């Protein structure tokens, strides 16, 4: 039974990693083929770094992820405090609306915002599809995740300390910054990281809301998959895989370090 279970686990992990291994292997192929490996070369990596379209979309992806994560974290964190102190129906309405972008399929969120933008663009001539609409759409789907990671921290908070600060003459804004924020900082950081990675990884919402001027990396990858096979995608995927692996390792090492620290206390 033990052997069987082990074999099964290996099989599932092989299934999860085989395609990635294939991509990494063929990213070093000197030929433009995924049938035959004709020799080791870094040709596709060189071509990748000379591809201006890919580099520009990488830049847009990083910019929109950073900006949308910062703005969503600000709006979401402030709102969490307000929503936390609400009661009854008002609170339920806020939480329900907050859940709309989380539960809706991406494509529905994407087209609903696209319809809004097109409505403004065509009827009022207020804006064009581009970086602005892309950024707005990313902030919109990021905010709920920030709220969802900050709210649980607020629930575990002792409200009396915040009120005590005010009774002692500290104005609400200052007591919020000095008393509440330090205690929920972990939730804020989690929300920010989540927003950043969700934004970086998103394809569907960017695809419908970026127009032709502000394509993110996933949108560019999508248009590359429609053209004839190019090993440049393999090279790009390999680099992304290595980046993600390093990031996860660092985060995990930090976490286990923190756990050890907490265990000592």
């Amino acid at each position, binding site marked *: 039974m033990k052997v069987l279970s082990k074999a099964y686990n290996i099989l*599932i992990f092989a299934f999860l990693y085989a395609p*990635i291994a294939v991509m990494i292997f063929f990213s070093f192929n000197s030929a433009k083929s*995924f049938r035959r490996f004709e020799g080791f070369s870094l040709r596709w990596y060189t071509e990748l770094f000379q591809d201006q379209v890919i580099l520009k979309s990488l830049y847009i992806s990083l910019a929109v992820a950073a900006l949308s994560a910062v703005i969503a974290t600000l709006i979401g964190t402030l709102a969490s405090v307000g929503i936390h102190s609400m009661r009854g129906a008002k609170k339920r309405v806020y939480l329900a609306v907050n859940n709309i972008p989380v539960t809706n399929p991406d494509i529905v969120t994407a087209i609903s915002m696209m319809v809004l933008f097109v409505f403004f663009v065509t009827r009022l001539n207020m804006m064009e599809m581009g970086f602005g609409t892309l950024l707005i759409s990313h902030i919109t789907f990021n*905010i709920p995740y920030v709220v969802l990671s900050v709210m649980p921290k607020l629930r575990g908070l002792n409200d009396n300390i915040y009120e005590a600060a005010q009774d002692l003459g500290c104005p609400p804004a200052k007591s919020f910054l000095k008393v509440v924020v330090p205690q929920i900082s972990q939730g804020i950081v989690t929300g920010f990281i989540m927003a950043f990675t969700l934004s970086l*990884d998103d394809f569907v919402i960017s695809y419908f809301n970026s127009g032709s001027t502000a394509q993110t990396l996933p949108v560019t990858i999508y248009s590359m998959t429609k053209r004839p096979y190019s090993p440049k995608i393999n090279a790009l995927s390999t680099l992304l895989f290595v980046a993600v692996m390093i990031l996860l390792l660092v985060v995990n090492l930090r976490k286990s370090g923190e756990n050890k620290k907490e265990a000592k206390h």
Partner: protein
Amino acid sequence: MNRKDSLFKRVITAPYTVWMAIFVVVPIALVVYYALTDADGHFSAANITAIVDYGRTFRISIELALVSTAICLVMAYPLAYAIARMKARRQGTMIMLVMLPMWMNFLIRTYAWIAILADKGLINSFFQLLNPDFPGFKMIGTRGAVVLGMVYNFLPYMILPIYTVLTKIEQSTIEAAQDLGANRAQVFRRVLLPMSVPGIISGVTMVFVPAVSTFVISKLLGAGKTYLIGDIIENFFLGNTGTVNYNIGASLSLVLMLMILISMAVMNHFDKDESAGGML
């Protein structure tokens, strides 16, 4: 709460309220508006009745998503169980291994399968190496390839929540059942399965929702032959000028949204029933 404080809280919530109203509530209202009007903006039920024409696509989408979800569940449960019973340190490593592919963009994960499944891809090359006359499997463009793409992409979403609930089941609970004479199958059916219902439900939701609404997996691995509801919606919004029709696209999206909302409500209800039953 003093007056100054309640004013402060209203002020800091205001940006959120305005933002969510304009970019979440109004867009949904606009989708409903488009779904119920014609191209000139007059009220019309034509888009809603037109959905009947896409009944077959809805059926195929739901079928493929259900099949993928079921396969994910069957594949994920034993692995999640095995990980949950490992030593704490090893659990962390294994879960990281499950999550690692998830952090790759799903376009790349799907694209990788084209190299493996293509007519001149790895699998066919392998068989042709053994037998040069081998005609080759036709895999890209079949429904099987689409299901494979869904299972591959969404399997971690099933493993993680099931693993989480299984770690909360104490080993002693299982031992108690065994001491009371339950065999392996009974322990699974009467103890493990009922206790893992919340994890199964969130796993099923996290797999089914993206699977039923995808248009990328069907485009890449279905090669345009397997048309899903996501493909139709995409085509109505971003297709050629001749095919763009926001009104029908909006009504299809509305149906998709309602369908998912209703099935989630049903499942949550089921979840509550189960956990209440478990308490007795």
